[in-house]
Each structure stands twice: as C-alpha cells, then as structure tokens.
C-alpha cells in the first residue's frame, strides 16, 4: 500500500474544513495548474502590508496557501503573504465585539453582541456630535479601508480621517511635492527593471514585492545596489554595498555627493537645462525673477539666454545660461543652479564625513559611480526617522534630477494614475459621494493641517487637540486596523490623550496594544474575507485590481467587514446624512450590505470605463479572471512632461517651499534628540524588513522570522562587557523611559548605534496569551521618543537616543 505522509498526519480541522467561496475560472495561461487536479485559485490583493501585491489564494489537496499572481503588474509575495492563513485562523483573533469593564489601559472586557455594541457607540457619538460638532470625531487608520474613509468620515460630517502617514512618509511626500509636484510614495519610484545603479537611503525592499520582481532583470544586467543605512537590512546581505551611516545625517551625505557631482561637472547639463528650473534667475530675496520684474508683459519666470544675450521667458529661451549672475531689474540675480552649487559647497566630502561618519573617499566614489552610471536614488517611503528627513529626500530628488534620472530608463518613473475615483469629495460648497449623494459642506478644517499645513495626516496634532481642546476639541477616536502605540511617537502623550477622550473604539483583527485602551473593540475581517476594488500601487502602470472574497471568517470568529461596521456606526449616529448618501437601514442586514458594496463597485467601474473609454464588461471580466486590469503601460522617456509644480518643471530650487516660507534648497539639520556623547549612550534606530506590519507580526511565521533583540556592534559590546544574549536596560536620554531587552551582537549595525525592528516587540496588551507572549519580548522603540515633528509636514523622529546598562546574562 502506498501510504502518504498526509494520511499519517492528524489534519488540522480548521484549514481543511474551510471553504473557498468564489471560484473564478482557472487562468488559461497556467497550463501547469490545469494538470494539477482539484486546484482552485482566487485572485486576491494581499493586505498583510499596505503594498497590495497581486497574489492567488490557492486551494490544493485541501490545503490553502498563497502564490504570486505573476501576470499582475505588481506581483507578490513575501513571508507576510505566505503567512496569511495563520492570520486568518489566528488563535488570538478578536472573535466577538468587546466592551470595556475595567479602566482604560487595563484590558478588561466583556463580550457583547453586535447590535448592542453599535447602538451604544452611536448613542455616545450622538452625544459628542451634538455637544462638540462632528469634527470632534476622528478616524485614524493605516491602509485598510483607506479608500472608503473619506466616504465614512464625510457622511458623519467630520473632515478628520487621519491616516498613519506622518509616521510613515510625510517627509518624502513633502519632498516629492516641492520638487516634482508629485504625491505619496507610490507616485514616484525607481524604474528597477532598467536600473543600472540604485542607492537606497534607509530602504530595504520591505514591502512591494513587485519591485523585487522588476529588479530581477537589472540584476541579470549587473545593477549595483548601495544601501545607506545605520544597519544592514536583509536585502543588503546579498550582492551590494552597505554604507553604514550615522543616524540622522543622510542629508549631509547626499549633499556631499551633490557637491562632488557639481564641482566635477558629472551632471547631465542638457537634461538639467531642459527639465529643471536650474536656469531660473533668483533675486536677493530668494524669489525668482519674472517678466513683470523687468517691466515686461507676462508673468513668466525669466532666464538669461546666451544666444539672445538677454533675459527671456524660460518657456522661450533657446540657450539658457546655467551659471550666470548679474544685474537685472536693479538687483543682483543668480541662477538657481549657482545657488544650489553654493549650498552643496557647504558640504565638501571631508566636512560631511565629520557629520555622517562615511569616509570622504567613499562619498566621492559613490557620487562618481552614481553619476557615471546615471543611477537612481530611491525616493523614500517610510521616512519618519529623524525629524530632518524631508531635506534628505529633497537632496535625493535633486540628485536624480542632476544626473537625468527622472522619467527616464532606469531613473525614477512618475506613475501613471489609474483614475480610480475617490469615495467622496469635500468641496467648499458641498460633499459629493461616489454613490451620487450630496451633503452640505463640511465647514470645519482638518485638525492636522491647521498645525502642519504642507502635508495632511499628522496624528500628533489630534493628540494635541484632545489634550488642549485647541483649535477645537476632539472627543471621540475610532482606530481602524492600525496601532498608535507602535506607529506614533510620544507614548506618554498618547496614553494621556486616550485617557482624556470621551469615546475610543478599536476596529481590528488581533489585539494590538491600543485595544486595551478602547471602550469597544470590534472584530474586523481580514483581506481574504472581503472584496475590494483598488488602485494597483507600486507599479509604473495605470491599473486597478479586484481582491476577491476567498474565505469566510473561521468558525467562532464573528468578524465583520470594517466598512459595514463604520457605516452602521455612522447610520445609527446620523441617519439622515447616511440616507442622503444612499446608505439606509436596509444595509443593517449584513447580507444586504453586499448589495451596497456592489453598487459602489459598479459606480467605480462606470467612472473608470468613462475615463479610459473601455467597456465596463471588459474590465469586469479581467477582474473576475485575473484580478486586475491595466489601462496604460508606462514607458521610459527623455524626461518628464509638464509637472504640477509652479513652473511646470522639476524644481531643484523649490518655489513651493517659498510659499511655506521654507528654504528653497535642501540642507542638513541635526536631529532633535539629545546627541549621545558618553560611552554608554547610543542612537536607537528602528527599521523594517519584510516582517514588520500591524497584522503580519502576529503570525507565527513572522514572529519566528523577526528578531526582537537589540542589535549592538561587537566593538561596543566588547567595550561595555556585554555579550550576545545578555539582558540590557535602555533609558531614553530625552524622556527617561526604561525598558529591557536581550542583545544581539552583530556587525549588521554601525558602532554607536542600536537597532530594533519596528512593531516587533515590547507589546503589552493583556489580551496576548500563550506562545504569542513572545510579542511582549524586546522593546517598542517608539516609547523612547517625544513629539519631535518637522514643522510643516509633521514627520516625526521615531529614532531616539538611549543610555544602556547590563542587567543580566
């Protein structure tokens, strides 16, 4: 008898008994799978992190696992996606709505039914809204339901849907806005496929795996990768160069590279003249010279044309001067290029070495290699590290522009938008929704941009409003699939604010720490349990994807679609407004709610069909069969077309920055935390690899792959008599916070620096039990920080400095 191992093993009932609900036709381009009898494949957008990679949930031989959707414009996958089933049937999954019975922070709850939970929350919200206005209600979230959030918040009447962004990408987003007129991190990225030389500043390929797929071609062609980072990420252990840098000094390193490229004339002069505003003439007050200044007609910015030997509108110049200074309109003017050169000259490699700790010769060599290869520097995603990061990424974009690497082969691409419509728009005169609803305008201003005007989604401003009641009170917080304790800075302030609020609701899958501080905890679906139509991010192409519902929640888990949860809260709070956007009591029936989702999907597809002139049926068929549809493919060009900057050019001298009274050129500023000076004082930096996200970290696969120890350089360890595995206590130099962790002695971190994975350890929720208590090991680095925020964009420093003491072997 041919007995297989499977017959021998006791089957785990849950996984085997689960049914895949929707079975789209097998993709025809997979002849191999056709032979594999009984295989089912459901196209899904992975949501173990925010990248949304294209994957399939596969069911073969009664086993479920995840495979990449290789035809998808952004195919997966990493360990997080591979561990998705462990999240689905996680033993600590929130199973029923919970109501707090102890004090906030105690983590004591009783189970209640959905109806009671939703009614009680709505009753409290009605009270808050009537007393303080709807703007006193804030939704905070990460990527889950990010598309739906304006619809939900605006229907309730609050402008305050405040994402995680400040603690993620506000610094680089500000840089992209100033120089390229671009938006968030997915709008610009390296053309990895054709890249020759890639510099990653504090980046490790930790999220969108489609980028790694695209990099394969470049690897075959011999691309060089350079990782500038105080610690060596996983990817840096493969072929590539690691440049260990002192934390918070990236801008100095980059400006020194710029100095080398400018003084050695390694830049692409034609590109710089044609596609950037380097030739603009700048007046002594920092503003650009215009035709108006010269008493001429028109208001165009002016350059000096070497052929015409005169000042000419930059739009008409034939041969604009890159390096020119002289008199114009009675003042002395100089080209933006000269000003940039002067700025970079403050950072000769030898001076930069003193700041960033990278040898001057290394800076020179990398600058030359980068320029000669027409390399690309990654434009930044998670950049909330030292509260000075926006300058670093402004330097990054400027360097890319100098070597002609924007919208060119192997440079940065500017993503083609999918034209996916928004769920709701708040105009000055009214709110309109995708469902065709109209509401009166929301008069209150966003609480974050009142304080940080350049880039929205600064949660720290919410905490300030809770505690100070200014500029207006915030009384209710709904935390959706995100975790402020491992996301945001200044834990003490967070705790104070959570105590002060009238209502705290957590909607989540697993008990992240803020659950302990909530009045109500509501169990959410994971991505496998709901449908979602979404933009395909992290690809240059214009595409959308449809994540199919592949599974029901496992037995005993009464989780609901978070969109339904929030709409039910909103409807029970403001029924008339909900009705005005087409959401009626009918949808309280969870099964009827699918009709509402279908209606929204139909509206989106109709809008996309119209925008791209493609029949709805054609899009729908592709979404059904393959899970995605590409509207337009990006191809490399000679340079960018008109950009939504003030001049339409790449602004190496940012005119938008002048509007914010910010420096039009990048510079290096020291980070805000106290500098370590004594032998037992260190930088505490945190970072990621493919393991770190709000939900993935809970799976046993990821919990086993990630390291919760504090990394320490062998030289530091030897000096302090600390050995691998020792127990140490860290004390924040600025906030005195203390926590203990085990040490890993490794050459993967620079001397004088400690590294820990973000979100991985130092958890405290009382709802964490059993083998998952490992999540309580290690430290949460955010707890050592204060509200050190960049003034305009609110990007905090999640790095800090600490004193170390050995407390055990």
């Amino acid at each position: 008898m041919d007995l297989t191992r499977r017959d021998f093993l006791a089957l785990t009932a849950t996984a085997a008994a689960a049914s895949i609900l929707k079975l789209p036709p097998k993709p025809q381009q997979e002849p191999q799978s056709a032979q594999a009898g009984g295989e089912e494949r459901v196209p899904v957008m992975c949501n173990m992190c925010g990248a949304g990679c294209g994957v399939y949930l596969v069911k073969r031989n009664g086993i479920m696992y995840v495979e990449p959707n290789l035809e998808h414009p952004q195919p997966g996958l990493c360990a997080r996606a591979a561990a998705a089933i462990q999240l689905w049937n996680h033993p600590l999954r929130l199973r029923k709505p919970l109501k707090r019975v102890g004090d906030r922070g105690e983590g004591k709850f009783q189970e209640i039914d959905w109806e009671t939970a939703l009614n009680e929350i709505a009753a409290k919200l009605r009270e808050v809204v009537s007393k303080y206005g709807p703007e006193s209600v804030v939704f905070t979230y990460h990527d889950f339901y990010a598309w739906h959030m304006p619809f939900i918040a605006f229907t309730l009447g609050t402008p305050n849907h405040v994402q995680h962004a400040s603690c993620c990408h506000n610094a680089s987003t500000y840089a992209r806005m100033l120089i390229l007129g671009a938006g968030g991190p997915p709008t610009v990225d390296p053309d990895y496929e054709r890249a020759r030389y890639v510099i990653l500043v504090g980046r490790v390929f930790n999220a969108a795996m489609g980028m790694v797929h695209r990099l394969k071609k470049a690897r075959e062609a011999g691309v060089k990768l350079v990782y500038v980072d105080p610690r060596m990420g996983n990817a840096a252990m493969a072929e590539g160069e690691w440049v260990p840098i002192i934390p918070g000094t990236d801008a100095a390193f980059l400006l020194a590279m710029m100095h080398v490229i400018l003084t050695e004339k390694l830049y692409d002069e034609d590109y710089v003249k044609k596609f950037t505003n380097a030739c603009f003439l700048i007046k002594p007050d920092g503003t650009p010279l215009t035709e108006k200044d010269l008493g001429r007609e028109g208001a165009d910015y002016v350059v000096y044309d070497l052929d015409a030997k005169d000042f000419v509108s930059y739009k008409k110049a034939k041969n604009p001067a890159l390096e020119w200074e002289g008199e114009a309109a009675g003042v002395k003017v100089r080209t933006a290029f000269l000003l940039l050169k002067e700025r970079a000259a403050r950072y000769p490699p030898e001076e930069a070495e003193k700041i960033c700790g990278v040898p001057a010769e290394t800076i020179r060599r990398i600058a030359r290699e980068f320029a000669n290869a027409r390399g690309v520097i990654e434009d930044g995603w998670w950049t909330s590290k030292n509260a000075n990061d926006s300058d670093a990424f402004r330097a990054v974009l400027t360097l890319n522009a100098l070597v002609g690497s924007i919208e060119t082969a192997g440079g940065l691409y500017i993503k083609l938008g999918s034209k996916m419509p928004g769920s709701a728009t708040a105009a000055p005169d009214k709110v309109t929704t995708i469902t065709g609803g109209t509401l009166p305008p929301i008069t209150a201003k966003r609480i974050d941009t009142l304080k940080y005007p350049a880039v929205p989604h600064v949660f720290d401003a919410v905490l300030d409003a809770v505690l100070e009641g200014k500029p207006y009170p915030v009384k209710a917080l709904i935390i959706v699939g995100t975790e402020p304790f491992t996301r945001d800075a200044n834990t003490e302030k967070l705790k104070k604010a959570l105590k002060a609020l009238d209502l705290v609701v957590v909607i989540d899958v697993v008990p992240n720490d803020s659950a302990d501080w909530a009045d109500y905890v509501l169990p959410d679906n994971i991505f496998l349990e709901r449908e979602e139509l979404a933009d395909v991010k992290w690809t240059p192409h214009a595409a959308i994807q449809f994540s199919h519902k592949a599974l029901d929640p496992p037995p005993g888990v009464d989780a609901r679609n978070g969109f339904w949860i929030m709409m039910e809260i909103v409807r029970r709070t403001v029924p008339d407004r909900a009705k005005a956007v087409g959401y009626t009591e009918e949808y309280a029936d969870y099964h009827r709610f699918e009709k509402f989702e279908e209606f929204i999907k139909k509206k989106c597809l109709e809008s996309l069909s119209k925008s791209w002139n493609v029949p709805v049926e054609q899009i729908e068929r592709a979404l059904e069969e393959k899970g995605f549809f590409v509207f337009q493919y990006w191809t490399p060009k000679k340079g960018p077309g008109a950009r939504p900057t003030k001049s339409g050019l790449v602004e190496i001298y940012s005119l938008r920055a002048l509007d914010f009274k910010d420096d039009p050129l990048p510079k290096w500023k020291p980070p805000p935390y106290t500098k370590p000076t004594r032998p037992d004082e260190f930088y505490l930096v945190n970072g990621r690899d493919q393991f770190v996200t709000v939900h993935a970290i809970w799976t046993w696969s990821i919990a086993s792959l990630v390291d919760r120890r504090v990394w320490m350089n062998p030289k530091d360890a030897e000096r302090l008599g600390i050995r691998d595995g020792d127990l140490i206590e860290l004390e924040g130099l600025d906030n005195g916070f203390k926590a203990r962790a085990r040490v890993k002695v490794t050459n993967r971190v620079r001397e004088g620096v400690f590294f820990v994975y973000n979100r991985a350890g130092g958890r405290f929720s009382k709802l964490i039990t059993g083998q998952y208590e490992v999540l309580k090991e290690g430290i949460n680095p955010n707890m050592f920080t204060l509200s050190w925020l960049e003034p305009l964009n609110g990007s905090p420093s999640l790095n800090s400095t600490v004193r170390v003491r050995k407390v055990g072997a």
Partner: protein
Amino acid sequence: MRLAHLWNQATCIGCGACIAACNAANYKSTDRPNPTWRGLQTNIKRIVFDRELKPHTLLVQCQHCENAPCVAVCPTGASYIDRDGLVKIKPELCIGCKYCMTACPYGMRWLDPVTGLPNKCMGEECQDRIKHGLQPVCVTVCPAGARAFGDLDDPNSEVNRRLRGARVIRLLEHKGTRPKYFVVVGR
C-alpha cells in the same frame, strides 16, 4: 533523473517567503512550534552569519545528497533515494528512531510534534506539486527569482542553466555527501 535545488545568495532579499510558504503548503500553516528547531514548522532554516566581516545569510534545507548519510543509517529503509533523485521518507516504514536526524550533517530533519516522525524537504504538498509538473512552493513564491529546481541530468533544466557561468558552492562537501543543493554566491 537527479532533481536538485538551487538558491542564489547573491540576489536573495531575505524576505522569508520560501520559509513561510513551506509551512503553509506542507504543514497547513500550523502555528505549533517546531520542537527541533524552535520557531516555525518549515523545512528551510535561515542562518545569519552576523559576526562575519560582511554579514550574510544562508538558507539551508535538505540537500538531497547523492550519498545521503540519513539513508545509510536508516535501519528500516524508510529513508531512501527515490528514482527522481530526491531523498524521501516512507512513513509506514519509519519507527521514529531518529538515527537519520543525528546522521544528517546539515541538521535538516526535524521531529513532527504530532506523529513523532522526522520531517524534511520535500513536504507532501511539494512532492505532489512536482508530480503534477509544478515547482516546489519555495521556488514558486520567491519574488527575487533566487530559487530554481530541476533535473541535473537535463542540460536544459533551469538549474543547469543557472549553474552555467555562476560562482557556486555546495555545503559541507568534504563530508562526502555529494549534496544537490547549490548555493550561487555570485557571477
């Protein structure tokens, strides 16, 4: 037929997809800790050489040796080299004596906490996948294209294609095991 695995250390980003996918496909995403290796039930072990001057990772799994010590020591013939060149276990013959676990110089067998019998690459699902012309799951999921699987006897196989012109090492060759797990360390 001599089926073999290849892993490219020079392009691996260390994302762990192969490790987690092995657990999902072959061990039904179980979260029961691995009693032998701790952590996860999976057939791939990640070793990080932190103290090297240039730190690096090694992913280790069953080497499907042509001179396999685990097969040599097995008293019942449960461990054997199949006609496809893969080292496999017949569970109906296995008495759980663990000689194979001790004999494997790579330490690539671990004890199943439910059956009390050794597990190793390839797991059941991966064996079924290759029977149906699919790749082992670790190869399928790798975003970096760092893995390949194929027949060393077929000059056109992906493994042979990648071995040509690459700098390759095999692990603990001096043990005389004739391992069929190829680690590409550069071009």
